[in-house]
């Protein structure tokens, strides 16, 4: 019998066996809807989640309920999409012309961006500094006065009564743009990274300069040092991993993988690359609109951070703990992409968002400052100062199924294990990887 037929037979066997195998589970142990809902929303603690995973894996009643909830959730999303009013775009009649127009736009934006980037390279280092981001300075009078007015809040501008508002807005936009550019280089989205892996590896072998991640990491350190410390309403510490405007940029960075050509590229092209071509009257309104979006994004991100902070502080979300040689210093990595650090044995935590789309599954901390993390989608992050995280070039693995483990010796040496058990080691901080025996 062919292997495919055997697979079919095995699938049938699994179906029948799993459907009937509910022995040892009593319905009185089944959780209340309150708990099911919290499990569904991933709001249970690590201990509770593990306990209920075990129960659900053996209880067909609870599984049926969760399955029904998943189906009901699907309806929610479908309704939301329908309510958005853009469904007509999906009809085949519109699909082809729209796709063609979109492709042309993307091409034009790409060419514009490419030209603009070649001019921008010389100013790259300056742009990474948040206090020196008057990108729009030579472009519009309103933006020209933006940078100085940021530091002296109620600006004494000579440009008229409406000027201060515009100054603030353009300042925010400029900072958000700078942060967005930085993040797009520091933490590229997984698909982009995977495509670029081979080329990047080749570049790094030939070039005598330090890898891109390291240089960006140091720029990031500068920004972190300049950023004011943040606290939430309850006075709990939140580690300022990124500069203040980063929440807006973080949002746009998070959206980038799905909509690669959408806001960032277009915005850059319009406001910076071709300033002379844009109408002066339209510029402030566009900036105001962008700034409103950024402000809304910042509010959303702040609310998410607040809930995440609260959940983590009471051990409410799933994740794993990484121990360091010092028993007082611990790392906690949550499923939602946050990492917490405790220096008092877990009594208090400082949290950072990892700015990544990967799902981290393992970590190793050879010292109190150094920690390596690996994700199922192939990302490797490392901190050497206990504060800032840099992405490490992963090994190139055929038939890659994600990482499952890591064991680090110091900031340069580590061995990663893939999901299918293959192991790769580095002794130069990820610049080169060897198959470990």
């Amino acid at each position, binding site marked *: 019998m062919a292997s495919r037929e055997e697979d079919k037979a095995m*699938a049938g066997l699994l179906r029948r066996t799993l459907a009937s195998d509910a022995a040892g589970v009593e319905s009185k142990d089944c959780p209340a*809807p309150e708990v099911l809902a919290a499990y569904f929303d991933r*709001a249970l603690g690590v201990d509770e989640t593990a306990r209920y*995973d075990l129960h659900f894996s053996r209880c067909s009643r609870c599984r049926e309920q969760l399955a029904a909830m998943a189906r009901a*959730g699907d309806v929610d999303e479908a309704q939301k999409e329908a309510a958005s009013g853009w469904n007509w775009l999906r009809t085949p009649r519109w699909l082809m012309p729209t796709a063609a127009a979109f492709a042309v736009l993307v091409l034009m934006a790409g060419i514009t961006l490419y030209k603009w980037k070649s001019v921008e390279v010389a100013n790259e280092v300056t742009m990474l500094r948040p206090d020196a981001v008057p990108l729009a300075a030579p472009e519009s009078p309103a933006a020209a006065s933006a940078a100085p007015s940021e530091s002296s809040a109620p600006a004494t501008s000579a440009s008229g009564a409406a000027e201060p508002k515009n100054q603030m807005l353009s300042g925010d936009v400029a900072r958000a743009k700078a942060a967005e550019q930085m993040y797009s280089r520091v933490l590229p989205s997984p698909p982009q990274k995977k495509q670029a892996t081979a080329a990047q590896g080749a570049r790094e072998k030939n070039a005598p300069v330090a890898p891109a991640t390291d240089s960006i990491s140091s720029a990031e350190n500068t920004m972190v040092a300049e950023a004011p410390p943040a606290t939430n309403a*309850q006075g709990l510490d939140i580690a300022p991993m990124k500069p203040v405007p980063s929440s807006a940029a973080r949002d746009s960075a998070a959206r980038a993988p799905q909509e690669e050509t959408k806001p960032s590229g277009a915005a850059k092209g319009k406001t910076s690359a071709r300033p002379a071509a844009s109408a002066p009257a339209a510029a402030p309104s566009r900036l105001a609109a962008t700034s409103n979006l950024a402000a809304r994004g910042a509010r959303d991100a702040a609310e998410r951070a607040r809930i995440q902070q609260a959940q983590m502080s009471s051990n409410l979300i799933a994740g794993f703990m990484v121990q360091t040689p010092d028993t007082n210093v611990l790392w906690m990595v949550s499923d939602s992409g946050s990492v917490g650090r405790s220096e008092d044995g877990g009594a208090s935590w400082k949290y950072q968002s990892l700015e990544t789309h990967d799902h981290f599954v393992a970590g190793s901390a050879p010292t109190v400052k150094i920690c390596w993390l690996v994700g199922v989608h192939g990302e490797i992050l490392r901190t050497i100062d206990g504060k800032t995280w840099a992405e490490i070039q992963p090994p190139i693995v055929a038939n890659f199924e994600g990482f499952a483990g890591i064991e680090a010796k110091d900031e340069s040496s580590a061995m990663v294990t893939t999901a299918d058990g293959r192991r790769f080691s580095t002794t130069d901080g990820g610049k080169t990887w060897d198959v470990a025996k």
Partner: protein
Amino acid sequence: MQAHMPTTSPAKQIVSLKMAQGLLQRAAMPADWQLSPERIQRTLERSVAHRFANAPPNDARTIQGYLDSLHAADLALACACSNGNAAAWDSFVAQYRPELYRAARAIAGEAASRELADSLYAELYGLREVAGQRKSLFDYFLGRSKLTTWLHAILAQRYVDAFRRARHTESFDDDSDPGDRASLAAPAQLSSDPERERYLAMLQGVLLAALGTLAARDRLRLAYYYVEGLTLAQIGKLVGEHEATVSRKLERTRREVRKHVEAALRREKKLSEAQLRLCYEYAREEWPFDLTQALSARE
């Protein structure tokens, strides 16, 4: 469900009035809902007791962290509705009633959805009275999830329980189902091949053993996929993984299970390759599952 609602609150001293006021402030609810801090404090105490039932925390920071993680606006709405506030109820109706019917349709299908949603709707309003007091289902909402998710969970529970009750009754009442008749048939009537039952029982036994060694998450993914028939995206939502990850992990688990089963059949049951192939061939056909399960237990 009543059993899950604590009547006494061990966390009585833990949630202060100030904490309750903080939550109300965060909820930013309309003034005409007339929800007092004392009322929300009582609910928060129950919520804390429910979360920390096994190990009550002794520091205010942990409690505050927990309270901050609650869905404040949803909790305030539920409390106000439970109080019988008309403005809050209007707000709930406007915001959630269409959603309730939609979810009921998705869970129970068009025909049964109306009845399912309406029965829940009545309980939410509090038509039931206990000792002269109106009892609303909203009393059981403790803010740990979104109100929408909680409503889905209740709908799902009602539907699944009713369905299981009906299935149980039918399996004994309705003897016209050929599948059920087959499952109750005597072994001698099942097949002319005497080896068939033995092979299937062996296969069944080693498969159960292989499933028993799996991690809870792996087993859960398999069950969602093979038994509940969920899509990869739906499974991903339930286990908090991307659908590509779900697919990869499902495939890995399936490989592991098969490897385990074949190794056990070769090593423990001493089957040859030809006999192994024969097992798979038998497994592709229909057979009375309950019987082979019983036989495999004897093996």
